[in-house]
Protein backbone atom coordinates (compact mmCIF):
# COMPACT_ATOMS: atom_id res chain seq x y z
CA UNK A 1 0.00 0.00 0.00
CA UNK A 2 2.84 2.37 0.78
CA UNK A 3 4.36 2.23 -2.65
CA UNK A 4 1.38 1.82 -4.94
CA UNK A 5 -1.17 4.21 -3.44
CA UNK A 6 -0.63 6.61 -6.34
CA UNK A 7 -1.68 3.96 -8.87
CA UNK A 8 -5.02 3.50 -7.12
CA UNK A 9 -5.36 7.26 -6.82
CA UNK A 10 -4.65 7.69 -10.55
CA UNK A 11 -7.19 5.03 -11.53
CA UNK A 12 -9.87 6.57 -9.32
CA UNK A 13 -9.24 10.09 -10.56
CA UNK A 14 -9.41 9.02 -14.20
CA UNK A 15 -12.61 7.10 -13.52
CA UNK A 16 -14.04 10.16 -11.75
CA UNK A 17 -13.02 12.51 -14.58
CA UNK A 18 -14.58 10.27 -17.24
CA UNK A 19 -17.90 9.89 -15.39
CA UNK A 20 -18.08 13.49 -14.20
CA UNK A 21 -16.80 14.76 -17.53
CA UNK A 22 -19.69 13.19 -19.41
CA UNK A 23 -22.47 13.67 -16.88
CA UNK A 24 -21.96 16.98 -15.07
CA UNK A 25 -23.47 20.12 -16.62
CA UNK A 26 -21.19 22.46 -18.59
CA UNK A 27 -21.67 26.16 -19.45
CA UNK A 28 -23.63 26.66 -22.67
CA UNK A 29 -21.49 28.58 -25.11
CA UNK A 30 -22.01 29.38 -28.79
CA UNK A 31 -20.17 27.13 -31.30
CA UNK A 32 -18.61 25.04 -28.52
CA UNK A 33 -21.77 23.61 -26.95
CA UNK A 34 -21.03 20.16 -25.57
CA UNK A 35 -17.61 19.91 -27.25
CA UNK A 36 -16.15 21.85 -24.32
CA UNK A 37 -16.10 18.48 -22.55
CA UNK A 38 -13.16 17.64 -24.80
CA UNK A 39 -10.95 19.75 -22.52
CA UNK A 40 -11.24 16.96 -19.92
CA UNK A 41 -9.60 14.53 -22.32
CA UNK A 42 -7.55 16.42 -24.90
CA UNK A 43 -5.43 18.61 -22.61
CA UNK A 44 -4.57 15.91 -20.02
CA UNK A 45 -3.20 13.78 -22.89
CA UNK A 46 -0.68 16.48 -23.78
CA UNK A 47 0.20 17.06 -20.14
CA UNK A 48 0.88 13.35 -19.71
CA UNK A 49 2.96 13.32 -22.92
CA UNK A 50 5.09 16.28 -21.84
CA UNK A 51 5.67 14.69 -18.44
CA UNK A 52 6.74 11.39 -20.04
CA UNK A 53 9.08 13.13 -22.50
CA UNK A 54 10.54 15.08 -19.59
CA UNK A 55 11.14 11.85 -17.67
CA UNK A 56 12.76 10.44 -20.79
CA UNK A 57 15.16 13.39 -21.14
CA UNK A 58 16.07 13.21 -17.46
CA UNK A 59 16.93 9.53 -17.79
CA UNK A 60 18.85 10.16 -21.02
CA UNK A 61 21.00 12.70 -19.20
CA UNK A 62 21.41 10.25 -16.32
CA UNK A 63 22.40 7.52 -18.77
CA UNK A 64 25.12 9.70 -20.30
CA UNK A 65 26.65 10.33 -16.90
CA UNK A 66 26.20 6.82 -15.46
CA UNK A 67 26.21 4.34 -18.35
CA UNK A 68 23.56 2.30 -16.54
CA UNK A 69 21.41 0.37 -19.04
CA UNK A 70 18.36 0.65 -16.75
CA UNK A 71 18.32 4.41 -17.35
CA UNK A 72 18.30 3.81 -21.09
CA UNK A 73 15.35 1.42 -20.77
CA UNK A 74 13.42 3.99 -18.73
CA UNK A 75 14.14 6.66 -21.34
CA UNK A 76 12.94 4.57 -24.27
CA UNK A 77 9.83 3.27 -22.51
CA UNK A 78 8.87 6.83 -21.53
CA UNK A 79 9.06 7.84 -25.19
CA UNK A 80 7.04 4.78 -26.23
CA UNK A 81 4.22 5.60 -23.83
CA UNK A 82 4.53 9.33 -24.59
CA UNK A 83 3.92 8.64 -28.26
CA UNK A 84 0.70 6.77 -27.43
CA UNK A 85 -0.53 9.76 -25.40
CA UNK A 86 0.51 12.05 -28.24
CA UNK A 87 -1.56 9.97 -30.68
CA UNK A 88 -4.60 10.17 -28.40
CA UNK A 89 -4.03 13.92 -28.03
CA UNK A 90 -3.99 14.33 -31.79
CA UNK A 91 -7.11 12.17 -32.25
CA UNK A 92 -9.17 13.97 -29.58
CA UNK A 93 -7.98 17.29 -30.98
CA UNK A 94 -9.01 16.31 -34.50
CA UNK A 95 -12.46 15.19 -33.34
CA UNK A 96 -12.95 18.53 -31.61
CA UNK A 97 -11.61 20.53 -34.57
CA UNK A 98 -13.96 18.69 -36.91
CA UNK A 99 -16.93 20.03 -34.96
CA UNK A 100 -15.78 23.55 -34.09
CA UNK A 101 -13.50 24.51 -36.99
CA UNK A 102 -15.24 22.43 -39.63
CA UNK A 103 -12.28 20.28 -40.61
CA UNK A 104 -10.07 17.86 -38.67
CA UNK A 105 -6.76 19.32 -39.81
CA UNK A 106 -6.74 23.02 -40.72
CA UNK A 107 -3.35 24.41 -41.69
CA UNK A 108 -2.46 25.81 -38.31
CA UNK A 109 0.96 26.34 -36.67
CA UNK A 110 -0.01 24.56 -33.45
CA UNK A 111 -1.22 21.47 -35.30
CA UNK A 112 1.74 21.39 -37.67
CA UNK A 113 4.12 21.90 -34.76
CA UNK A 114 2.63 18.94 -32.93
CA UNK A 115 2.83 16.79 -36.07
CA UNK A 116 6.52 17.64 -36.52
CA UNK A 117 7.23 16.99 -32.84
CA UNK A 118 5.61 13.56 -33.25
CA UNK A 119 7.78 12.87 -36.29
CA UNK A 120 10.82 13.81 -34.26
CA UNK A 121 10.07 11.23 -31.59
CA UNK A 122 9.27 8.61 -34.24
CA UNK A 123 12.70 9.43 -35.70
CA UNK A 124 14.15 8.68 -32.26
CA UNK A 125 12.66 5.18 -32.41
CA UNK A 126 13.92 4.68 -35.99
CA UNK A 127 17.39 5.76 -34.87
CA UNK A 128 17.29 3.14 -32.14
CA UNK A 129 16.41 0.45 -34.65
CA UNK A 130 19.23 1.52 -36.94
CA UNK A 131 21.87 0.73 -34.33
CA UNK A 132 22.70 -2.84 -33.34
CA UNK A 133 25.27 -2.52 -30.62
CA UNK A 134 23.52 -1.99 -27.28
CA UNK A 135 25.85 0.50 -25.62
CA UNK A 136 26.23 2.56 -28.76
CA UNK A 137 22.47 2.58 -29.36
CA UNK A 138 21.83 3.76 -25.83
CA UNK A 139 24.41 6.54 -26.06
CA UNK A 140 23.56 7.92 -29.47
CA UNK A 141 19.80 7.78 -28.94
CA UNK A 142 20.22 9.51 -25.58
CA UNK A 143 22.09 12.29 -27.34
CA UNK A 144 19.38 12.64 -29.98
CA UNK A 145 16.70 12.62 -27.29
CA UNK A 146 18.35 15.50 -25.44
CA UNK A 147 18.76 17.31 -28.75
CA UNK A 148 15.07 16.80 -29.64
CA UNK A 149 13.50 17.94 -26.37
CA UNK A 150 14.23 21.70 -26.63
CA UNK A 151 13.14 21.64 -30.28
CA UNK A 152 9.85 20.01 -29.20
CA UNK A 153 9.29 22.76 -26.63
CA UNK A 154 9.93 25.43 -29.26
CA UNK A 155 7.54 23.74 -31.69
CA UNK A 156 4.66 23.23 -29.29
CA UNK A 157 4.86 26.28 -27.07
CA UNK A 158 6.92 29.07 -28.65
CA UNK A 159 6.31 29.10 -32.41
CA UNK A 160 2.48 28.89 -32.19
CA UNK A 161 2.43 31.85 -29.80
CA UNK A 162 4.43 33.98 -32.24
CA UNK A 163 2.14 33.45 -35.21
CA UNK A 164 -1.59 33.45 -35.76
CA UNK A 165 -3.18 30.28 -34.55
CA UNK A 166 -6.74 29.08 -34.26
CA UNK A 167 -5.91 26.96 -31.26
CA UNK A 168 -7.21 28.24 -27.89
CA UNK A 169 -4.43 29.80 -25.84
CA UNK A 170 -2.30 30.69 -28.88
CA UNK A 171 -1.85 33.57 -31.30
CA UNK A 172 -3.88 36.00 -29.21
CA UNK A 173 -6.76 33.57 -28.60
CA UNK A 174 -7.64 33.22 -24.95
CA UNK A 175 -7.35 29.77 -23.39
CA UNK A 176 -10.55 28.19 -22.15
CA UNK A 177 -9.59 28.59 -18.54
CA UNK A 178 -9.65 32.39 -18.68
CA UNK A 179 -13.18 32.84 -19.88
CA UNK A 180 -15.30 29.81 -20.31
CA UNK A 181 -14.67 27.49 -17.43
CA UNK A 182 -16.83 27.68 -14.38
CA UNK A 183 -15.99 26.24 -10.97
CA UNK A 184 -17.63 22.91 -11.73
CA UNK A 185 -15.51 22.43 -14.85
CA UNK A 186 -12.33 23.20 -12.97
CA UNK A 187 -13.26 20.57 -10.38
CA UNK A 188 -13.11 17.98 -13.16
CA UNK A 189 -10.38 19.46 -15.33
CA UNK A 190 -7.51 19.77 -12.82
CA UNK A 191 -7.94 16.28 -11.32
CA UNK A 192 -8.17 14.86 -14.85
CA UNK A 193 -4.71 16.25 -15.67
CA UNK A 194 -3.18 14.72 -12.55
CA UNK A 195 -5.02 11.42 -13.05
CA UNK A 196 -3.84 10.92 -16.64
CA UNK A 197 -0.28 11.86 -15.67
CA UNK A 198 -0.31 9.19 -12.95
CA UNK A 199 -1.75 6.61 -15.34
CA UNK A 200 0.93 7.48 -17.93
CA UNK A 201 3.72 6.99 -15.42
CA UNK A 202 2.12 3.73 -14.26
CA UNK A 203 2.00 2.32 -17.80
CA UNK A 204 5.60 3.40 -18.29
CA UNK A 205 6.82 1.63 -15.13
CA UNK A 206 4.91 -1.53 -16.11
CA UNK A 207 6.56 -1.58 -19.53
CA UNK A 208 9.93 -0.84 -17.95
CA UNK A 209 9.61 -3.77 -15.53
CA UNK A 210 8.51 -6.05 -18.34
CA UNK A 211 11.57 -5.03 -20.36
CA UNK A 212 13.81 -5.70 -17.36
CA UNK A 213 12.40 -9.22 -16.95
CA UNK A 214 12.82 -9.82 -20.68
CA UNK A 215 16.42 -8.68 -20.50
CA UNK A 216 17.22 -10.87 -17.50
CA UNK A 217 15.80 -13.86 -19.34
CA UNK A 218 17.95 -13.13 -22.38
CA UNK A 219 21.08 -12.87 -20.30
CA UNK A 220 20.33 -16.12 -18.42
CA UNK A 221 20.16 -18.11 -21.65
Amino acid at each position, binding site marked *: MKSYWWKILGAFIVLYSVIAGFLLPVPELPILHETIRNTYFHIPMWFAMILLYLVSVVYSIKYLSSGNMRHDLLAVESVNVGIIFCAFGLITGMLWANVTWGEPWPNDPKLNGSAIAT*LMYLAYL*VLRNALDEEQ*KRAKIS*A*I*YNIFAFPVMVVLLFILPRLTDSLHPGNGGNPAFSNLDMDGLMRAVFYPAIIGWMLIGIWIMTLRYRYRLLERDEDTLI
Partner: protein
Amino acid sequence: MNLLKQVSLLVQKEITLEWRSKYALNGILLYVISTVFVCYQAFKSVHPIIWNALFWIIMLFAAINAITKSFVQESRGRQLYYYSLVSAKAVILSKIIYNVLLMLLLSAVAFFVYSTIFKNKLGDPTLYFITVMLGNLSFATVLTMVSGISAKAGNNGTLMAILSFPVIIPLLIVLIKLSKNAMDGLDRSISYNEITVLLAINLIVITVSLLLFPYIWRD
Protein backbone atom coordinates in the same frame (compact mmCIF):
# COMPACT_ATOMS: atom_id res chain seq x y z
CA MET B 1 47.09 24.59 -26.37
CA ASN B 2 43.93 26.42 -25.45
CA LEU B 3 40.55 25.89 -27.06
CA LEU B 4 40.68 28.97 -29.28
CA LYS B 5 44.04 28.01 -30.76
CA GLN B 6 42.90 24.43 -31.35
CA VAL B 7 39.75 25.60 -33.10
CA SER B 8 41.58 28.04 -35.34
CA LEU B 9 44.17 25.39 -36.27
CA LEU B 10 41.46 22.84 -37.09
CA VAL B 11 39.51 25.34 -39.18
CA GLN B 12 42.71 26.19 -41.04
CA LYS B 13 43.29 22.49 -41.63
CA GLU B 14 39.77 22.03 -43.01
CA ILE B 15 40.16 24.98 -45.35
CA THR B 16 43.58 23.84 -46.55
CA LEU B 17 42.30 20.32 -47.20
CA GLU B 18 39.31 21.66 -49.08
CA TRP B 19 41.44 24.10 -51.05
CA ARG B 20 43.80 21.34 -52.15
CA SER B 21 41.13 19.14 -53.66
CA LYS B 22 38.33 21.69 -54.23
CA TYR B 23 36.18 18.62 -54.70
CA ALA B 24 33.31 19.45 -52.35
CA LEU B 25 33.31 23.13 -53.16
CA ASN B 26 33.19 22.70 -56.94
CA GLY B 27 30.74 19.83 -56.74
CA ILE B 28 28.30 21.78 -54.62
CA LEU B 29 28.70 24.95 -56.66
CA LEU B 30 28.00 23.01 -59.85
CA TYR B 31 24.99 21.38 -58.17
CA VAL B 32 23.56 24.73 -57.08
CA ILE B 33 24.09 26.46 -60.39
CA SER B 34 22.72 23.61 -62.47
CA THR B 35 19.64 23.27 -60.24
CA VAL B 36 18.98 26.98 -60.54
CA PHE B 37 19.36 26.72 -64.29
CA VAL B 38 17.05 23.72 -64.56
CA CYS B 39 14.42 25.52 -62.49
CA TYR B 40 14.76 28.55 -64.71
CA GLN B 41 14.38 26.48 -67.88
CA ALA B 42 11.40 24.63 -66.49
CA PHE B 43 9.48 27.57 -65.08
CA LYS B 44 10.70 30.66 -67.03
CA SER B 45 8.69 32.93 -64.75
CA VAL B 46 6.87 32.02 -61.58
CA HIS B 47 4.73 33.49 -58.88
CA PRO B 48 6.86 35.16 -56.15
CA ILE B 49 5.72 32.66 -53.50
CA ILE B 50 6.89 29.73 -55.63
CA TRP B 51 10.13 31.58 -56.38
CA ASN B 52 10.76 31.87 -52.67
CA ALA B 53 9.89 28.23 -51.94
CA LEU B 54 12.09 26.97 -54.80
CA PHE B 55 15.05 28.95 -53.51
CA TRP B 56 14.77 27.44 -50.04
CA ILE B 57 14.40 23.92 -51.43
CA ILE B 58 17.57 24.39 -53.48
CA MET B 59 19.44 25.79 -50.47
CA LEU B 60 18.25 22.98 -48.19
CA PHE B 61 19.44 20.20 -50.47
CA ALA B 62 22.70 22.00 -51.21
CA ALA B 63 23.27 22.28 -47.45
CA ILE B 64 22.53 18.60 -46.84
CA ASN B 65 24.86 17.57 -49.67
CA ALA B 66 27.63 19.81 -48.42
CA ILE B 67 27.44 18.98 -44.74
CA THR B 68 26.77 15.22 -44.80
CA LYS B 69 30.38 14.81 -45.83
CA SER B 70 31.83 16.63 -42.86
CA PHE B 71 32.42 13.56 -40.70
CA VAL B 72 32.66 10.95 -43.40
CA GLN B 73 35.80 11.97 -45.21
CA GLU B 74 37.99 11.28 -42.21
CA SER B 75 39.03 7.73 -41.46
CA ARG B 76 38.67 6.25 -37.97
CA GLY B 77 42.42 6.30 -37.57
CA ARG B 78 42.65 9.97 -38.22
CA GLN B 79 39.78 10.67 -35.86
CA LEU B 80 41.62 8.78 -33.14
CA TYR B 81 44.67 10.93 -33.88
CA TYR B 82 42.63 14.13 -33.38
CA TYR B 83 41.18 12.70 -30.22
CA SER B 84 44.62 12.30 -28.74
CA LEU B 85 45.64 15.82 -29.74
CA VAL B 86 42.69 18.13 -29.19
CA SER B 87 39.51 18.32 -27.15
CA ALA B 88 36.17 17.18 -28.54
CA LYS B 89 34.71 20.67 -28.16
CA ALA B 90 37.40 22.03 -30.45
CA VAL B 91 36.52 19.43 -33.09
CA ILE B 92 32.78 20.17 -33.17
CA LEU B 93 33.34 23.95 -32.97
CA SER B 94 35.80 23.85 -35.84
CA LYS B 95 33.41 21.73 -37.93
CA ILE B 96 30.56 24.15 -37.21
CA ILE B 97 32.68 27.18 -38.07
CA TYR B 98 33.99 25.58 -41.24
CA ASN B 99 30.50 24.52 -42.35
CA VAL B 100 29.12 27.99 -41.60
CA LEU B 101 31.86 29.55 -43.74
CA LEU B 102 31.25 27.05 -46.53
CA MET B 103 27.48 27.61 -46.43
CA LEU B 104 27.84 31.40 -46.37
CA LEU B 105 30.02 31.26 -49.48
CA LEU B 106 27.67 28.82 -51.19
CA SER B 107 24.52 30.74 -50.35
CA ALA B 108 26.03 34.05 -51.47
CA VAL B 109 26.90 32.48 -54.84
CA ALA B 110 23.54 30.73 -55.07
CA PHE B 111 21.61 33.87 -54.23
CA PHE B 112 23.57 35.90 -56.78
CA VAL B 113 23.07 33.32 -59.55
CA TYR B 114 19.45 32.69 -58.66
CA SER B 115 18.42 36.31 -58.60
CA THR B 116 20.29 37.22 -61.79
CA ILE B 117 19.14 34.29 -63.92
CA PHE B 118 15.70 33.95 -62.42
CA LYS B 119 14.47 37.49 -62.12
CA ASN B 120 12.01 38.39 -59.41
CA LYS B 121 11.17 41.66 -57.73
CA LEU B 122 12.46 41.93 -54.19
CA GLY B 123 10.99 44.58 -51.95
CA ASP B 124 13.91 44.65 -49.54
CA PRO B 125 16.97 42.93 -51.07
CA THR B 126 19.22 43.62 -48.07
CA LEU B 127 16.84 41.97 -45.63
CA TYR B 128 16.38 39.05 -48.04
CA PHE B 129 20.14 38.62 -48.23
CA ILE B 130 20.40 38.73 -44.43
CA THR B 131 17.67 36.07 -44.26
CA VAL B 132 19.60 33.87 -46.68
CA MET B 133 22.73 34.24 -44.56
CA LEU B 134 20.86 33.51 -41.32
CA GLY B 135 19.15 30.53 -42.88
CA ASN B 136 22.37 28.98 -44.02
CA LEU B 137 23.98 29.64 -40.68
CA SER B 138 21.14 27.68 -39.07
CA PHE B 139 21.35 24.84 -41.61
CA ALA B 140 25.08 24.57 -40.94
CA THR B 141 24.75 24.41 -37.15
CA VAL B 142 21.88 21.90 -37.13
CA LEU B 143 23.22 19.64 -39.85
CA THR B 144 26.75 19.49 -38.43
CA MET B 145 25.47 17.97 -35.18
CA VAL B 146 23.09 15.60 -36.97
CA SER B 147 25.78 14.45 -39.38
CA GLY B 148 27.97 13.72 -36.37
CA ILE B 149 25.23 11.46 -34.95
CA SER B 150 24.50 9.71 -38.24
CA ALA B 151 28.21 9.20 -38.96
CA LYS B 152 28.42 7.17 -35.74
CA ALA B 153 25.30 5.22 -36.67
CA GLY B 154 26.76 3.53 -39.72
CA ASN B 155 26.30 6.66 -41.73
CA ASN B 156 23.43 6.06 -44.11
CA GLY B 157 21.76 8.91 -45.93
CA THR B 158 18.26 7.89 -44.89
CA LEU B 159 19.09 8.27 -41.23
CA MET B 160 20.51 11.74 -41.85
CA ALA B 161 17.24 12.76 -43.53
CA ILE B 162 15.06 11.22 -40.81
CA LEU B 163 17.04 12.86 -38.02
CA SER B 164 17.50 16.28 -39.56
CA PHE B 165 14.14 17.05 -41.19
CA PRO B 166 12.10 17.37 -37.98
CA VAL B 167 14.62 19.91 -36.72
CA ILE B 168 14.94 21.68 -40.06
CA ILE B 169 11.19 22.08 -40.74
CA PRO B 170 10.50 24.64 -37.97
CA LEU B 171 13.56 26.56 -39.13
CA LEU B 172 12.23 26.54 -42.69
CA ILE B 173 8.80 27.76 -41.54
CA VAL B 174 10.38 30.78 -39.82
CA LEU B 175 12.76 31.39 -42.73
CA ILE B 176 10.04 31.30 -45.37
CA LYS B 177 7.95 33.72 -43.33
CA LEU B 178 10.91 36.07 -42.87
CA SER B 179 11.93 35.95 -46.53
CA LYS B 180 8.31 36.53 -47.56
CA ASN B 181 8.33 39.68 -45.40
CA ALA B 182 11.54 40.78 -47.12
CA MET B 183 10.09 40.05 -50.56
CA ASP B 184 7.01 42.12 -49.90
CA GLY B 185 9.20 44.94 -48.60
CA LEU B 186 7.40 45.15 -45.27
CA ASP B 187 8.75 47.39 -42.57
CA ARG B 188 11.77 45.80 -40.90
CA SER B 189 10.43 46.16 -37.38
CA ILE B 190 7.86 43.44 -38.23
CA SER B 191 10.63 40.93 -38.86
CA TYR B 192 12.62 41.42 -35.64
CA ASN B 193 10.62 38.70 -33.91
CA GLU B 194 11.56 36.08 -36.51
CA ILE B 195 15.22 37.13 -36.53
CA THR B 196 15.33 36.74 -32.75
CA VAL B 197 13.76 33.27 -32.98
CA LEU B 198 16.32 32.20 -35.58
CA LEU B 199 19.23 33.48 -33.50
CA ALA B 200 17.79 31.80 -30.40
CA ILE B 201 17.44 28.45 -32.19
CA ASN B 202 21.05 28.74 -33.35
CA LEU B 203 22.23 29.52 -29.87
CA ILE B 204 20.36 26.52 -28.43
CA VAL B 205 21.65 24.18 -31.13
CA ILE B 206 25.28 25.28 -30.71
CA THR B 207 25.11 24.97 -26.93
CA VAL B 208 23.51 21.53 -27.10
CA SER B 209 26.09 20.40 -29.69
CA LEU B 210 28.95 21.57 -27.51
CA LEU B 211 27.52 19.74 -24.52
CA LEU B 212 26.68 16.50 -26.31
CA PHE B 213 29.40 16.05 -28.91
CA PRO B 214 32.04 14.86 -26.40
CA TYR B 215 29.78 11.83 -25.73
CA ILE B 216 29.48 10.90 -29.41
CA TRP B 217 33.16 11.40 -29.96
CA ARG B 218 34.22 9.00 -27.23
CA ASP B 219 33.76 5.54 -28.61
